[in-house]
């Protein structure tokens, strides 16, 4: 096997899969800063183990397996902080999270469509939350509404987006 070709393919696969690997990690940790760190660690380990991956073999399942290991290590190291999932749950959820993460790009395409269907008001709130990273308290202040109202609104928007995206992905797949 040509070493250069192997390396090049590895690079291609790694960069192609970044977002999906990130989705897997974030789904387990629920924290973007931590997920970024663990992604970096995962990338390093993947590179260190490049020889374990054969040209033409499925890349994502292998990457997910390494990512899971790093997530478990991170959860163990941060045991003092309350983690979203403990190691037990991480193992239990691994399959579902892997399956869903591998569909990240489909989700994004569907989401783009669904975002256009949001009302102006809801779109604004989503932007505050995701584009500007504002907390509920902060959004409430900005929009001059109660925290409870903001929380309820966010939950409702997320629920509706979930429904829309699920439906949209079914439609997309059929085409």
């Amino acid at each position, binding site marked *: 096997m040509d070493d250069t070709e192997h*390396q*090049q393919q*590895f*690079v*291609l*696969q*790694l*960069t*192609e899969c970044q*977002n999906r690997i*990130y*989705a897997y990690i*974030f*789904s387990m940790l629920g*924290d*973007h*800063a931590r997920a*970024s*760190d663990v992604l*970096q660690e995962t*990338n*390093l380990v993947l*590179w260190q183990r490049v020889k374990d991956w054969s040209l033409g073999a499925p890349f994502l399942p292998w990457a997910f397996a390494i990512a899971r290991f790093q997530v478990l290590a991170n959860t163990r*190291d941060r045991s003092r*902080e*309350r983690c*979203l999932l*403990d190691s*037990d*749950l991480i193992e*239990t*959820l691994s399959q*579902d*999270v892997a399956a*869903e*993460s591998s*569909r*990240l*790009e489909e989700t*994004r*395409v569907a*989401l*783009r469509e669904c*975002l256009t269907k949001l009302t102006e008001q809801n779109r604004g709130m*989503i*932007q505050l939350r*995701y*584009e*500007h*990273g*504002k*907390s*509920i*308290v902060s959004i409430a*202040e900005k929009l001059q509404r109660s925290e409870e109202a903001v929380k309820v609104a966010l*939950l409702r928007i997320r*629920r509706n*987006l*979930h429904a829309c*995206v699920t439906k949209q992905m079914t439609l997309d797949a059929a085409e």
Partner: protein
Amino acid sequence: MSSDDTLDKLNSLLLAHQEGRLSESEAKELYSILKSDPAARRRYAELQVLETALHLELMAGGTVIQSTATQADFKPSRTRQWKRWMAVSAMLAIVASTLWILKFSKPDDAGSLVIKDQERHLESVAILADALNAEWGEGIKPAAGSELAPGKYVLQKGSVMIDFHSSARMYIEGPSVIQIQSAFCVHLDEGRVRAHVPEQARGFVVSTDRLKVIDLGTEFSVQSTNSNSTVQVFRGDVQLQKADGSPLPGGNQTLSAGKGLSVDTQGNFQHIEALPLESDTFDRIQKKFGQHAQQQFQAWQKRRADWLKRPDVIAYYDFQKRDGQENQLPDHVSSQSSADGAIVGAEWTTGRWTGKTALEFKRPGDRVRINISGRMDRMTLAAWIRVDSLDNRLQGLLLTDGYVEGRPHWQITSDGSLRLGIRLPDLNGRLNSSGYGTPSLFTKDRMGVWTFVSTVYDSAEKTVKHYVDGVIVSEHTLVFDQPLTIGPADIGNWGAPFDYQQQPIRNFNGRIDELIILNSASTAEDIVDLYQSGKQ
């Protein structure tokens, strides 16, 4: 739970977690839902991936690595824009993913969180390990040894050392204003901090209005004024971002040892050299705290000598362990040998400073037995104590045996008040007692904090006064003026009357490192003086 309900429940729990508000019981609820219901697991995965998608779609700047799925074709194609990557060495992929992360990272939730008002945060995330001439401004005024919850802290003067639960250690020089956001994150409004972050706390963040510094296992300082923010790295590396999480101009976001960066209000960045290690080392700051403790201990030793010369000192227990005398607590003053304390169970430990020892009272039987004879019309009891918990109905500081007329009980109640109880002469054969107590003093904030307590009994003036840290907290009129006797007594516990069916547990839970008994009524000035010369 119906499928819709499960989804709503998960949605709600995940939102709570993002806000940093997921409670213990909610975490348990999440656990049981996910553990038991396969459908719930699928919903969870969907919600989290959707969350990732929202994050990717809307984050300012998006990602460096554009997925080929921007066209609705999900199969990677070799002939597309990835061709340029094929020529790149594998190490560049690591660099690329690092850049991707840096551009991708947004301020973590804590970083963009508005500080909530104090009542909401019950959980502490750090300890105020040490304070040197610290003066606090508006808001919380923590004492050395107390637990710190997330919130704003205004240090007007002096220096403090904070140990975060993440194991990061931070030195702050006043005047400074900080906002502690979690065990891993501090926002510096203004002033100067120095962080020492061991490997276990990697990822610790110090942010200012202009800059975000992410630790990679280092020692660094951050300074923030009205006109600029400066970061200097002394050991290791840090990652830098703008305050909003977007990358700095110029590409490389990592700062290594010996380097620094300054940002002004216009957003102009300037690379600088960090001050040489010697002029601002972690060790030097640590030494400053150590020297201060040493000075305090030496000053205490000198004071102790002065105290022993006073004529009104009935007993003075210095709680210093001496070789060959491990189970004795001599009183150094009285000619009565019975005034010497016999230690039962209580163990030697550290006191207010290095070099100063204390006795720790923990088990129900722990005590120091003493016997001091003599009647006193006036009495002052003063001690340096550290209450660790209030488990019993009453925590004895100095309790005379049994419940005898004219023999005092000096103690702390379960609701944290300092109390002097005295049995009065029986009238008509009925047991009468009087108790003089302060409002609740030993609250959660005071657990683990060295405190100076003193009580002054004056039968001539007919008053009982309680002082805490040199300040009077309550004054009472005596119900019945009688002289007091100590006789056989326990420090830190109670020898209950023989006719009690069950021995109630009255042991002190904490440490004592100095106890003075005077047969005079100390003035307020005396008490302040005593406090000032003994505080940390």
